[in-house]
């Protein structure tokens, strides 16, 4: 039985659809209203509040905290200054992805890591022999993501003690809401302007109420997982167990992926300090990866044609799909799309996935499987760069 999050008192009354799901053992709203559309557009056009408390959160402290974080993550933590946040993957000994998340440097020797899955044992074991402590603070922090173009305007009225105009992309600050300390990070899972707020659970509802008291005038809406899923695909962001399988859960080698194979090569600092998986990743870099991460745009005319054959307009709009489908080139399967969705803002059918390296160049025409009235068909698609949607206000 999933348990409620600290925001449950507020989200439960708003969840008209009764459409809940379990996220890491917590009750998470899939959609509040019968349809996710307004929630999605709130993210893109006004602002949305998303309860992300189920994220796993770890605090790493001690004289060698930085060394431990450096040993865990593939990025170079010495480049992360106090007050900065980094998105990063982390890998096992063979350079295969275990999980990905953010590292916030709260102090010289104090870090907070978010993860999609439990990582306490892994972090602790990586730190064995180092003077650093790993603490699971998942239950000590409620997390609320406020995303969308109006998010800053709303938060400026809710939070005190923070200069939000001065808070850069992937930076953090400490503020207060009604006297309760809140950590603000300019991060999110939408590829939009947005912030994540970290607060003690007992003050979660207070934060929620303060936000909505102001936010109503800015079109603030609560948004669920369905809307978020579309937004994160538009942003080209990975979802564990959907776009990749954690090396800790993979049953066979072929199910594992390296950061290079997931478009995260930019987050691998091979020349920094040693980290778990570096040796393997160096070798992979030298050898060349087998797989590459791609974004795909499905050719609309091709879709129309396939559906026209059965007398229908394209039946694509709706929720994002987390079911992988094959990708083809010249009739041979060369990869798979792991997440795909109709992008309401781009008015395009888009997908992310993995293909054999040789087919990864932007502009490469491929084919994607699509099921039309129970019959498997192939639509034309083309490899494109991600993110699909990248508004200027994201970093402004």
């Amino acid at each position, binding site marked *: 039985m999933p348990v409620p999050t600290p925001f449950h008192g507020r989200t439960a009354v708003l969840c008209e659809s009764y459409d809940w799901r379990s996220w890491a053992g917590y009750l998470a709203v899939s959609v509040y209203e019968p349809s996710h559309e307004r929630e999605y557009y709130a993210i893109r056009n006004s602002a949305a509040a998303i309860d992300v408390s189920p994220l796993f959160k770890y605090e790493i402290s001690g004289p060698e905290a930085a*060394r431990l974080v450096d*040993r865990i993550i593939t990025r170079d933590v010495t480049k992360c200054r106090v007050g900065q946040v980094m998105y990063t993957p982390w890998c*096992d*000994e063979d350079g295969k992805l275990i999980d990905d998340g953010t590292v916030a440097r709260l102090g010289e020797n104090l870090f907070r890591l978010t993860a999609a899955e439990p990582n306490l044992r*892994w972090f602790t*074991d*990586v*730190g*064995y*022999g*180092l003077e650093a402590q790993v603490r699971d603070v998942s239950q000590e922090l409620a997390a609320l993501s406020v995303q969308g173009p109006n998010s800053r305007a709303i938060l400026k009225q809710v939070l005190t003690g923070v200069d939000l105009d001065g808070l850069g992309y992937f930076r953090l600050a400490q503020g207060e809401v009604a006297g309760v300390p809140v950590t603000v990070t300019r991060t999110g899972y939408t590829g939009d302007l947005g912030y994540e707020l970290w607060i003690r659970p007992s003050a979660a509802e207070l934060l929620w109420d303060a936000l909505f008291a102001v936010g109503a005038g800015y079109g603030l809406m609560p948004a669920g997982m369905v809307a978020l899923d579309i937004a994160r695909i538009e942003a080209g962001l990975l979802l564990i167990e959907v776009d990749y399988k954690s090396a800790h859960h993979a049953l066979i080698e072929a199910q594992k992926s390296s950061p290079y194979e997931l478009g995260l090569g930019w987050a691998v600092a091979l020349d920094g300090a*040693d980290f*778990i998986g570096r*040796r393997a990743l160096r070798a992979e870099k030298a050898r060349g990866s087998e797989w590459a991460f791609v974004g795909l745009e499905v050719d609309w005319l091709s879709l129309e044609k396939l559906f026209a054959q059965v007398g229908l307009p394209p039946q694509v709009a709706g929720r994002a799909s987390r079911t992988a489908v094959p990708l083809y080139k010249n009739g041979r399967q060369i990869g798979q799309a792991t997440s795909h969705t109709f992008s309401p803002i781009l008015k395009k059918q888009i997908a992310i996935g993995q293909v054999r390296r040789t087919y990864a160049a932007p502009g490469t025409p491929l084919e994607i499987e699509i099921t039309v009235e129970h019959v498997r068909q192939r639509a034309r698609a083309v490899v494109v760069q991600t993110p699909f949607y990248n508004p200027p206000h994201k970093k402004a």
Partner: protein
Amino acid sequence: MNDYNAIVIGGGHNGLVTAAYLAKVGRRVLLLEQRGVLGGAAATEAVFPGCRVDTGAVDASLFADEIVRDLFLKMAGLHFVEGKVAVFAPQPDGRSLTLYPDVHKTAQEIARLGHPQDAQKYPAFVQQVNHLTAVLQTMMRTPPPDLHTLSLSDLTAWGKVALQTRRLGGREMMALLRILPMPVAEYLDTWFQSAALQGAIGAAGITGSYLGPMGGGTTLMLLYQASGGFGRSRFVLGGMGQLAQALAGAARQNGAEIRLHTAVARILLNEENAAIGVRLADGTDILADAVLSSLDARRTFFHLVGAQHLEPRFMRQVRAIRYRGSTARVNLLLNGLPQFNGQESAAQLSGHIRIAPSLTYVEKAYDAAKYGRFSPQPYLNATISTLADPTLAPTGQHLMHITMQYAPYHLRDGNWESERERLGDHTIATLAQYAPNLPALIANRQVITPLDWEQQYGLTEGSIMHGQMGLDQLLVLRPVPGWSQYRTPIANLYLCGAGAHPGGGVTGIPGYLAARELLRQKAGV
């Protein structure tokens, strides 16, 4: 170019064997020993004035003969003394049982004690043990196959073991598979009725282990202990440490350099996590092409390499090794020979004097250890080294070395500082039940606890075998699964001590095989 081709850490007998073999083929070798004496857990030390005391190992029957030959150790001053007696086992009822190297003489002795059926079976038993130890000997000398690569040459070597096992014939082969994992108490139950006989033979199955004779795998230890020949005791003239001296002589003769009082503080790694040398406790760095550690895996990797340089999966394996020392030592200087109940001649004391009147007695001794206390009625194995070599103590005096089990490293109450002398008292009191004149003969005594083994001799948790010798920590699983070939995940770092295959005891085999592996890997260097 580095000053040395190889640095060997630890001057126990295995480290010395490695150094001697490498020097013999022209490698520039430096051996570093933290203590002021060589030999490690098989050393002879000036514990009492005017005496040379064996502080650790006493019996050298496991030491590989081919090493004696290869290194010309006899020329370097190594001389063995065969014990006329294997085991002398005084009994609570005042009688005694003596096991001799000679099978028929022993059978007569068993018959004399009123066990004609056991006496009759004894020769067949010895034959089975000899068959099984013959296979074991080959296994001990064959590096386990590398599970990562499963190379043909590895497997061919094991083919020999398989062949030898097949030659045993179907029945013996089944016996081997059935017997190895058995509790020694059950194995001996299938042979003998006499509790005294079972105790005298079977106690060897718990040597150095944190298991009672009813624990699985103890038969394997019995066979391991018999792998130098069942019913044998063999000592070194000049004390066990003379073996180390002879090895050191052979090593030096070939140009190896040996430094005492030189503790290694760290194994130096380069950017790629490969070993490049060592840092001494005084801060000096010495570089070498390869580093061979004769310390156990836990010490090598956690103390000298540092867990923070290990990949978690390897770190977890090392962390999971069971050490759990259970052995204490009481060394006595005696103003004369003790007189045991049921003892007819002094010669009877020239082998192992064993207080293990039954395996139930030994199991009971283990019960206390299970709950973190040392055994109130311990299993004792004593030797009197001055019977093999009277020059070890002043004329008329004798040295008695009593190995005591069980003394658990982890005490539930108190600590080893406060328990040390109490353990000494208990040990002597136990022995005095069988040799009433003993306490009055004691001129001096030394008690070595599991904590002392760790702190002074570098044995993790006081494990005299550098890790328990259970079935799950032997062969391809020693020191940890997948790394049984002396190599380690740290390039250029090798293990050459008792923590590696085949394991503990004064065999010299880990040291020898490690040197061979290094030469195979670095043929050109």
